[in-house]
C-alpha cells in the first residue's frame, strides 16, 4: 500500500541549524504526530514536504514527487500553519469566494455549515478574531475541499483546553468520514497527540530520535523508579535512558513487561509521551 507521505534522506542546511537525514512515512488512514521542542525541526520538515523550502533528499506525496507534481498534489492537501494565513484583513465570507477559485473540489455548503457549527462570524475581519476562532477558521478552510491529507503545524498551540478539544474533535471527524485520509500534525503539546495520533515521530536537533506507534510507546514503555544500588543491577542493554534525581534513579525501558519479570519489579510506571521525550533529551545513557 502506498503511503500518504514518504520522506527519504531529507536534509536542509541553515547556518545555525541542520535537518539531517530525515526518514519517515505517513501511512494512508493514519494520524502521525511530529513532536519535539521549539526549534527541533518540526516546521522545517513540514515546509520541506510542502516545497516551501528547497531540500536535499526525496519526498513523495500520494506516490508522486512533491516537486514534479506540486500543483496536482496540493489539490489533495489541506494545510494549517500556525503563523500564516491568506490575509488578516478579510472576512470568512471573502475567504470562501477566494478559496473556491483555487480548489476544484471546494465545498461551499460544507464551509458555511462548519462556520455555523463553530460559530465563526461571516462578516468580521479575521484580525479581530480570537486565537481560537482564527485557528478554527484555518482548519475549516483546510478541510473544505475534502483533501486526502491534512498537514497541520502547531494547530493547538496557545489555545485553551476547551478549544483544543474542539479542534481535536474536528480532526477525528475528518478521519472518520473517509478512512483513507491521513493527518500529519506537529505539536509540542504531546497530550493532544496521545489522544489522536497513531504514530509518533520524535525529532530533536534536526534528527529523528524515534518513529513508533503511539500504542507501543504508551503500552510497552515504562519508567522504573529505584535506588542507586538497584539501578546498577540493571543491565545497560535493558534500558534506553536514565535520569539521576535527588533521591532516586528513573530509568526508561521499552519492554516493561519483560523487564518487570526479569528483575522481579513490583511496579513500572506508565510514562506519558512528554516524559519519554524528556528522557531522550535530558536523560543519560552509559
Amino acid at each position, binding site marked *: 500500500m502506498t503511503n500518504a507521505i514518504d520522506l527519504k534522506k531529507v536534509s536542509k542546511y541553515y547556518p545555525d541549524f541542520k535537518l539531517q537525514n530525515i526518514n519517515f512515512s505517513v501511512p494512508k488512514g493514519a494520524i502521525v504526530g511530529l513532536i519535539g521542542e521549539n526549534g527541533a525541526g518540526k516546521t522545517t520538515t513540514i*515546509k520541506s514536504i*510542502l*516545497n*516551501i*523550502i*528547497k531540500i536535499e533528499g526525496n519526498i513523495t506525496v500520494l506516490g508522486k514527487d512533491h516537486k514534479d507534481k*506540486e*500543483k*496536482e498534489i*496540493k*489539490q489533495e*492537501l489541506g*494545510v494549517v*500553519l500556525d*503563523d*500564516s*494565513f*491568506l*490575509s*488578516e*484583513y*478579510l472576512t470568512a465570507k*471573502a475567504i470562501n*469566494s*477566494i*478559496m*473556491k*477559485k*483555487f*480548489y476544484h473540489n471546494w465545498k461551499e455548503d460544507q464551509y458555511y455549515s462548519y462556520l455555523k457549527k463553530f460559530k465563526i462570524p461571516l462578516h468580521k475581519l479575521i484580525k479581530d478574531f480570537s486565537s481560537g476562532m482564527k485557528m478554527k477558521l484555518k482548519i475549516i478552510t483546510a478541510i473544505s475541499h475534502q483533501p486526502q491529507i491534512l*498537514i497541520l503545524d502547531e494547530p493547538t498551540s496557545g489555545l485553551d483546553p476547551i478549544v483544543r478539544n474542539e479542534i481535536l474533535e474536528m480532526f477525528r471527524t475528518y478521519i472518520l468520514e473517509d478512512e483513507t485520509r491521513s493527518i500529519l500534525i506537529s505539536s509540542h503539546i504531546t497530550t493532544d497527540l496521545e489522544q489522536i495520533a497513531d504514530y509518533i515521530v520524535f525529532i530533536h536537533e534536526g534528527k529523528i530520535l524515534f518513529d513508533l506507534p503511539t500504542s507501543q510507546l504508551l503500552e510497552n514503555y515504562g519508567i522504573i523508579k529505584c535506588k542507586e544500588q538497584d539501578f546498577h543491577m540493571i543491565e545497560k542493554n535493558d534500558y534506553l535512558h536514565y535520569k539521576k534525581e535527588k533521591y532516586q534513579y528513573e530509568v526508561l525501558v521499552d519492554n516493561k513487561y519483560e523487564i518487570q519479570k526479569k528483575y522481579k519489579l513490583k511496579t513500572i510506571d506508565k510514562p506519558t509521551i512528554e516524559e519519554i521525550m524528556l528522557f531522550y533529551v535530558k536523560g543519560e545513557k552509559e
Partner: protein
Amino acid sequence: MKGLIKKDLLNLASYKTTLLILIIFCSIGIIGTESVTIAPIVIATIIGMIALSTFNYDESSKADKFILTLPLTRKEIVTSKYVLAIGSIIIGGLFGIILTIILTNFINIIRPNDLITIDYKSLCITTLCGMFGIALIQSIQIPSIYKWGAEKGRIQMFILLFIIILAILGISFFFTKFGFQIEEQQIESFLNQFGVWIISILMLLMYLISYHISYKIFSKKDY
C-alpha cells in the same frame, strides 16, 4: 491565479474611500485649473502605488508561506502581482482620461462661450508618460520587495530611484557641459510622432525584465 488577484482586490477594498477622495480632488483640480493632463497622471500614479501595497498586506499576515501551500506554481504567484500592477496603471490611466473628458464636456456645457478643446493625442501621450513613470517604479519595486521584503524593498527602491535621477542629471549635465543642444520642440514633435510606440515598448520591456528578475528571486527563495 484568479484567486490571488481576487484576494488582493478584496484586501484593497479598504482603499475605496481614499479613491473617492482622490477622484473628488482631481475633479476640483481639473475644474479649477482647466488642465486636461492632471487627472490621468495623478489617478494612475496613486492606483499604481496602491496596487503595490498588496505586498504589505501579505507581509503583515505572513501570507507568502500559506500561499505557497495552495495549488499554484511560483510562476503563477509572481504573474498575479504583475497582472495587478499593470492592470492598476491601465485602469488608473483610462479612468483619468474618461474623468477628464466628462468634466471638460461638463465645463463646456455650462460655459459655452469659452470652450476648452481637448487634444486627444496629446492627452494620451501625457497619460502614457505618467504611466511610464509608475511602471518604472513598479518594475524596480516588485523585484526589490521579492528580494528584501515590503519594508526593506521600499528603501532599496528609493535608493535605486535616487541613482536613476542622479544618472539622468549627470547625463543632462554632460550634454550641457559639452554644448549639446536639446530642442524642446524637436522632442515634442518626436514624441507626437513615435511617442506612443516608444513608451509602450519601453514599458513592456521594463515589465518583462522586472518579471524575470522577480521570478528568479522568488523561485529560489525559502520561506
